[in-house]
């Protein structure tokens, strides 16, 4: 037990070091790359060509294989960023601040993907591109938070205070987002007789569920890959003049 704990602890301490992370992740990236894209194409092709047509929605429902994974990733990335913000504020681990910086644009783009694919899906099925439903509104607010985080980050010259400020904002936003979603829910149920349910999760057939799960899984792997690459790029930017980086790049190591 003690042994496991000390291993985790040493891993955590190593994770905080830029050189170690840079070298470690360079071994990791090819594996993730080889793993991620085939699974992604498997899920998408299975979903688009081989899964059965939906009885009520027809062929248009197939956008689910982009929409649901993107929406799921968008939320998870934000809460991962909030946890990283907590880690940064409490333990001042500089890798956590870098994580937030690297993930914010990725999360924002997946939120935009979820919103656009949702609108394209909503037009033929609900007859409208947009509806002020709790899910849609909270996703839009999520996008706003991502954009504010990116904006706040870029306004600082000093990376250290930028990390601190963004960590605080991300944590406050993470507390705020469920409240927004809940309050839109209450407001909606009182204003409108019935909100449109996207689909009830239990009613989905297995033939549709498996490719969907594969798609969700592959999106997480891809986000992991993109995150690693963005973090490495940012490390390279911050440590450009450090000797370890020069040695590594120029091959003197």
């Amino acid at each position, binding site marked *: 037990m003690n042994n496991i704990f000390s291993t985790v602890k040493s891993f955590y301490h190593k994770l905080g070091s830029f050189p170690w992370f840079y070298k470690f992740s360079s071994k990791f990236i090819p594996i993730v790359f080889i793993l991620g894209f085939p699974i992604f194409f498997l899920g998408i092709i299975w979903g688009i060509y081989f899964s059965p047509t939906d009885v009520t929605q027809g062929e248009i429902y197939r956008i689910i294989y982009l929409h649901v994974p993107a929406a799921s990733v968008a939320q998870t990335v934000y809460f991962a960023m909030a946890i990283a913000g907590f880690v940064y504020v409490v333990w001042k681990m500089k890798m956590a601040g870098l994580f937030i910086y690297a993930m914010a644009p990725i999360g924002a783009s997946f939120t935009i993907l979820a919103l656009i694919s949702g609108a394209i899906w909503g037009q033929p099925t609900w007859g409208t591109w947009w509806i002020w439903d709790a899910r849609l509104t909270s996703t839009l607010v999520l996008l*706003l938070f991502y954009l504010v985080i990116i904006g*706040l980050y870029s306004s600082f010259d000093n990376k250290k205070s930028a990390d*601190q400020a963004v960590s*605080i904002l991300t944590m406050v*936003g993470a507390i705020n987002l469920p409240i927004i979603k809940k*309050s839109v829910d209450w407001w909606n149920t*009182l204003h409108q007789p019935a909100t449109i349910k996207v689909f009830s999760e239990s009613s989905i057939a297995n033939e549709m569920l498996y490719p969907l799960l594969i798609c969700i899984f592959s999106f997480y792997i891809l986000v992991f890959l993109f995150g690693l690459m963005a973090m490495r790029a940012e490390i390279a930017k911050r440590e450009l003049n450090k000797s370890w980086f020069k040695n590594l790049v120029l091959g003197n190591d």
Partner: protein
Amino acid sequence: MNFIKTFFSREILVYSKKSSNIISPIVFFLICITFFPLAVSNDPSQLSRFAPGIIWICILLSGMLSVQTIFKEDFDDGSLDLFYAKDFSILQIVLIKIIVNWLFSALPLIILSSSMVFLLYFPISNLLNLLSSLLIGTIIISFFGALAGALSLGKNSILASAIMLPLSLPVLILGSSASTYSSENIGFFLLLLLSLLFLTIPIISLACMGAIRLHYE
């Protein structure tokens, strides 16, 4: 205790020296309110239906004005540096500043918004709900505004409002709902607002302290 008293009276003095601190939110609020009948519709029945939303939006937007002023002057002239260096309690400073800022920028608007009964044909039966929801909601907005101001010290003013407005969304939703309903649902939304207030005060005070500290690291 002595420090709290001194600091409180200092803040009151600073705010009352500048008449723009009171005047500009009021002017902005009235202009915003005037826009709605001119742009949307001057039909009394429609206006009275939209009145809670209009009032809340205008309150939120005029809250945006005071966001920058709350810590900016003390940050620019270096008094905040002194407070920080002299080991004064940042928490007390933050809380007093928020209270005084609320007294000068939000309280006049709350009083003024009772005149919306005439201007926007706000139903008089809901007036008590509107005022009580404004009373709770503006405090929450002031806290979010203080956080936004503290995070964006020395930055441009758009950023502070961009931080504050998305954070204040639940207040807008709950507050305007509380003032829409006259009888049965009023307790529900007001209690939610109140619980949001009690959630906000400790979390945002802590976040504000952290946000001020980061400028001195």
